[in-house]
């Protein structure tokens, strides 16, 4: 095994950081009235480079760098690639709908890049100190991004709510870290796991784990820690919502998977029952609340809570099958959710002039392409076959059934039925013609970035729905580096499971 230089282990982070600094510096020296669009393209290019660097990490010999602080293996590479992909599409969406000049648009892309550094680092950090710093880098950037429309009334409010509850959650996570440190005398994930495996269980780790679950529960907006989500999503600009409903959640789920499966495998009974509860609550609360929403972004916020719940279902599986299902679901969810927010931000615009469901009436006739793409993503969110959403749900529920969590799977399937109602309601509204041809605000003409963004998201959702094999293989490989498979790898039986209606 040849030695990998430390710097290559954090190459995506280095690329993103340097690009962020470059964007920030150019923004500072550019004249106020110059277009900031080239900065956006610079961001897109650098995220693409980081994407490529993350892909290359799959080939790298797994190991740690910088004195055991970061670890690159197939798991971290999987989430690196996912997060870089999400950020890439979000930059494209922003290029499409954000104003070209004024409001310090360069800062927007710099913050997105810095946030991406944090999220990417979260998935490869194996030292709780670095996990904490990465979490904060990503959080602080998203706090600012949420309130980016600082002159609107809702922007600062959204940012404030996100900030206050986010830091509250961080404090809980940090207290959990402190207790783990107290119980084991170390903050390195591998050393913690080794210490916990040999010492008899004191009470500390259980409390510590519960505290960390609270902190991460907030970040992934799982019930009962979901209250901030709809308000923040409503007030934040749509490209930002596309980013923060997927990328930080994927990163937080990566941390959660590492914590639960690699650090506290002995506490499996405790955390799996807690996560069982969180999953059931998130699905039910999210879907029931989404039924009565009038605002599209709020509805999608509740839908994202429900999807966090579906993902948590995978944690009921004790083996690497759960990790694989959760990772696959993270990809499928990211593809369709970023996609639907691409449509929402193109149709609704930067200022959200179309925001309620009734505003979306007849969108499909004013812009047939947007209508069709929106319909496609809604179908995928419902979980109808030939879309990524179907296989995502399928593997998650299969993993739960394998582990014997039958009730959780039943709750999940019932919830998918409820969810279909509000997704279909939006779908029918989009395809309902106006009674009289009123003077509605027109939808902006298509631009190159939005076409690229839609191509990428529609393409990946379709690929995940028709030939999920490669991604599933990558997810299983990722899972194997968190939990080495003990028995023969359990093949997921392709049973004729009914698609969620």
């Amino acid at each position, binding site marked *: 095994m040849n030695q990998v230089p430390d710097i290559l282990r954090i190459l995506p982070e280095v690329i993103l950081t340097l690009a962020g600094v470059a964007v920030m510096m150019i923004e500072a020296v550019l004249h106020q009235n110059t277009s900031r669009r080239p900065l956006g393209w610079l961001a897109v290019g650098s995220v693409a480079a980081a994407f490529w660097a993350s892909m290359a990490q799959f080939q790298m010999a797994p190991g740690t760098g910088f004195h055991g602080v970061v670890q690159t293996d197939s798991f971290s590479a999987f989430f690196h690639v996912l997060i870089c992909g999400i950020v890439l599409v979000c930059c494209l969406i922003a290029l499409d709908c954000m104003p070209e000049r004024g409001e310090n648009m360069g800062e927007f892309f710099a913050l997105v890049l810095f946030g991406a550094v944090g999220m990417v680092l979260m998935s490869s950090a194996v030292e709780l100190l670095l996990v904490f710093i990465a979490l904060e880098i990503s959080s602080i950037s998203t706090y600012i991004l949420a309130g980016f429309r600082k002159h609107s009334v809702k922007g600062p409010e959204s940012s404030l709510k996100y900030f*206050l509850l986010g830091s509250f959650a961080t*404090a809980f996570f*940090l207290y959990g870290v402190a207790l783990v440190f107290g119980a084991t005398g170390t903050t390195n994930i591998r050393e913690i796991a080794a210490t916990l495996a040999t010492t008899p269980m004191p009470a500390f780790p259980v409390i510590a784990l519960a505290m960390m679950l609270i902190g991460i529960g907030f970040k992934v907006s799982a019930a009962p820690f979901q209250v901030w989500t709809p308000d923040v999503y409503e007030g934040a600009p749509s490209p930002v919502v596309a980013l923060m409903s997927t990328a930080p959640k994927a990163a937080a789920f990566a941390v959660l998977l590492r914590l639960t499966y690699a650090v506290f495998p002995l506490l499996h009974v405790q955390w799996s029952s807690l996560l069982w509860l969180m999953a059931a609550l998130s699905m039910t609360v999210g879907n029931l609340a989404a039924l009565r929403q009038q605002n599209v972004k709020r509805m999608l916020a509740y839908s994202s809570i429900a999807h966090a719940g579906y993902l948590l279902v995978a944690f009921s599986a004790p083996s690497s099958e759960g990790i694989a299902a959760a990772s696959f679901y993270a990809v499928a969810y990211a593809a369709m959710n970023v996609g639907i927010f691409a449509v929402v931000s193109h149709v609704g615009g930067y200022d959200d002039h179309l925001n309620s469901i009734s505003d979306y009436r007849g969108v499909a006739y004013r812009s047939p392409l947007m209508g069709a793409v929106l319909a496609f993503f809604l179908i995928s969110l419902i979980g109808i076959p030939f879309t990524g959403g179907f296989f995502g749900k399928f593997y998650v529920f299969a993993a739960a059934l394998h582990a014997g969590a039958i009730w959780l799977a039943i709750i999940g399937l019932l919830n998918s039925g409820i969810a279909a109602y509000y997704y279909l309601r939006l779908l029918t509204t989009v395809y309902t013609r106006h009674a009289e041809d009123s003077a509605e605000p027109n939808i902006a003409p298509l631009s190159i970035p939005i076409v690229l963004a839609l191509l990428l998201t529609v393409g990946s959702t379709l690929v995940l729905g028709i030939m999920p094999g490669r991604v599933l293989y990558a997810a299983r490989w990722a899972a194997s580096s968190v939990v080495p498979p003990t028995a023969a790898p359990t093949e997921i039986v392709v049973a004729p499971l009914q698609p969620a209606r």
Partner: protein
Amino acid sequence: MVPIAYYLVLSALLFSIGAGAFLIKRNIITVFMSIELMLNAVNLSFVAFAYQWHAIRGQIFVFFVMVVAAAEAAVGLAIIIAVYRTRNTLNVDQIDLMKL
């Protein structure tokens, strides 16, 4: 030497006071201060544990928490100013434009 349990109890108390104040207080600045209190309570735990384990790592953690808290404070106060400019109030009960 003061037994470590004292520090831990104090830290837990401070953390609970912070969490309680976060939920009860109505002024945004006070709410924000209670978050800082929670972070500093955690810092106390870290230092106590670092002393007990003779592990310098806990104290390094405190440095980083302090720096992150400062960064968070800067961003948080900027957000609070932005809120004040659009609303002319710092009462969390009146920041309620978006509700269920």
